[in-house]
């Protein structure tokens, strides 16, 4: 496992548990220097070792695959045209609020469509 990844995972687990390197090392049956070297990115532990340390912090180490970011020049060409302020606004909302906003827009869109259709009927348009 890469040193930087192991460092990030172990530091995250230990800080979430709010334990010192020494206490974590003791709980995992190892030394503080081992924990310190991994967190400093100076050692690349085996998956088993990292799992043991993470478990001592009260967590379970799970491995999964994630799609690797792909740089596609066509996709990149679209990015400058996207209004990021709308994205930033959306990211400030909860997921629930984002979906609710979508539902509200659909509701008003539907109302406008209905109103437009009624107007056309009233004006005798087909």
């Amino acid at each position, binding site marked *: 496992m890469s040193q930087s990844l192991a460092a990030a995972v172990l530091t995250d687990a230990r800080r979430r548990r709010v334990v010192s390197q020494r206490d974590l090392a003791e709980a995992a049956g190892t030394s503080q220097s081992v924990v310190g070297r991994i967190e400093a990115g100076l050692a690349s532990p085996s998956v088993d070792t990292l799992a043991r340390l993470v478990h001592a912090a009260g967590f379970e180490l799970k491995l999964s695959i994630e799609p690797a970011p792909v740089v596609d020049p066509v996709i990149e060409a679209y990015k400058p045209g*996207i209004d990021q302020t709308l994205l930033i606004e959306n990211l400030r909302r909860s997921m629930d609020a984002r979906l609710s906003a979508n539902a509200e827009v659909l509701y008003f869109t539907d109302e406008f469509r209905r109103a437009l259709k009624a107007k056309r009927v009233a004006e005798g348009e087909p």
Partner: protein
Amino acid sequence: MIQLDRMLEVLHGGHVEFIMIGGMAARAHGSARITEDLDVVYSRSDENVPRLVRALAPLQPYLRGAPPGLPFEWSVKSVKAGLNFTLVTSLGSLDILGEVVGGGRYEDLIKHSESVVAFGHPTNVVSLPWLIHLKRSAGRLRDFDAIAELELLRDMDRSKM
């Protein structure tokens, strides 16, 4: 047009196992695009298909875009005989997918989903990296703009870390 709150109520009320994907999942992850339909990957287990059929039956599902009067029967048999269905219901457009390109079936994709509370219901939504992957795998020209937006959202999310 989809009445999302009521559709989620129907699916959850019927204990249907599903994962939200597509435009509504993009919306949940922060997309500014408004989407008019709901796409879900459903479990094709022997327990879930009858639940899906029972839950949606009152909404009179019919094949979207198909001429009226086709001999389409909304039943466990029909769902088991098919895989992916684009439906129109009394609550709006709903795509139910047994399998998606790049993501596989429900059992494959659930590992790459997160549970969020939507309209009061804990709902499985495909993760942002996997949503991008699914859109890329679909290979549709009309998705390029959406993929670009999702990648920007992913990069914004990473920059917070």
